[in-house]
């Protein structure tokens, strides 16, 4: 993970869902070591904003800058430095936890069995490594998706409600992972509840208003 000068900036993003003008001139920037929490009521456009950042949704107007340059036309380079955890866990029920990581996280970085095991251990589901993902509980599936995010070794994390389905220990794990990530010079943007990492020094807020 190389993060020197890795500043992410969004300038005057406007986006529509259908005929609703959801994001109006949203601008912000995130620096290494910062965790930006996007808050606001349901339906205000948190997910839309995160999907626009990832390029999964087109923005009507506005610009995204990564390391000071527009990401337009350099999506693949930008995507490689971006780790995304969406609403969906992107798991295959018929594959084991290990296979899920090998076949999906392996697309980004070359993995060894040891790295996969170490990451499964980090998220606390090492003992479930050879079970089909189908048989994991909802919280364990979320942990597996977190393992995928860790293996991506990305500088910029985009997390959409990362603590969904997680128990208290799981929520603490997510908080630890985020703090650890930004302390090592990473950046994180998350749509999350008010209380997630509420008093952490790395926290910055972006309140979306309807």
């Amino acid at each position, binding site marked *: *993970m190389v993060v020197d000068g890795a500043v992410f900036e969004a300038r005057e993003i406007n986006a529509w869902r259908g005929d609703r003008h959801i994001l109006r001139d949203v601008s912000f920037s995130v620096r290494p070591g910062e965790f930006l929490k996007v808050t606001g009521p349901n339906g205000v456009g948190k997910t839309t904003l995160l999907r626009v950042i*990832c*390029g*999964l*949704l*087109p923005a009507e107007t506005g610009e995204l800058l990564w390391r000071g340059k527009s990401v337009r036309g350099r999506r*693949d*380079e930008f*995507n*490689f*430095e*971006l780790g*995304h955890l*969406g*609403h*969906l*866990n*992107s*798991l*295959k029920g*018929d*594959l084991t936890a290990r*296979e899920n990581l*090998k*076949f*999906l996280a*392996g*697309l*980004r*970085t*070359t993995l060894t069995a040891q*790295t996969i095991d170490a990451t499964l251990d980090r998220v606390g589901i090492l003992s479930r490594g050879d079970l089909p993902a189908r048989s994991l509980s909802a919280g364990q599936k979320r942990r597996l998706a977190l393992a*995928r995010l860790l293996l*991506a*070794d990305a500088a910029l994390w985009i997390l959409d409600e990362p603590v969904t389905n997680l128990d208290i220990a799981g929520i603490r794990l997510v908080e630890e992972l985020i703090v650890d990530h930004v302390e090592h010079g990473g950046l994180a943007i998350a749509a999350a509840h008010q209380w997630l990492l509420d008093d952490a020094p790395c926290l910055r807020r972006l309140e979306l208003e309807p």
Partner: protein
Amino acid sequence: MTAVRTPTLAAAKLVFQRDMTLAWRRWDEVAQPLMFYVVVTTMFPLATTPDLSALREIGGGVVWVAALLASLLALEALFRADVEDGTTEQWVLSGQPLGYLLLAKVAAHWVLTGLPLVIMSPIVGTGLGLPTSVWGVLMASLLLGTGTLSILGGIGAALTVGVRRGSVLLSLLVLPLAMPLLIFGSRAVSMQMDGDSPAGPLQLLAAIFFMALSLGPIAMSAAIRISVEN
């Protein structure tokens, strides 16, 4: 830990391997098109005539139509599961060229559904009275034809993946494009049977295949990007 970026070829191989692993665990779904192919071609002699010389006249055409419909049968679900569980989203964001990943997926699909049709075709053809002298041409034409159809179908499946009950739409999209394959494919078989050189239609099939192979990934990745926008 410093991450080594996966080379594109290795990433495509992972997608291919993954689909093989998944198919191995769901082999009954994979076997469906092959069953359809064998059953349909077996029904023809029952419904028309057991006279081999009469069957021989239509044999090439029957094998081709059955192969076409059997390949189409398996196409609808091609991308559906991956789009619904969010896997394609991660592919789009993997930093790898999406077209290659999708092509690898289509290649796996072809190995699982198209290739068995090609391998079975001499047996099925014999049942319809096709002489051994046309086996080579029949298999070559089906090899090119099913390959093209997998790619064309991949484009159609990528476009219709967001549509509820997209199978009718998919057939309407893909079948007209598949007509040239049917015409050239069955023509190659009948020319060989009549003692003419089948090189002309086979070369046309090969030309269509390479066009699909080169332009298909671009079209598929564009269609998938639209599908994940929702």
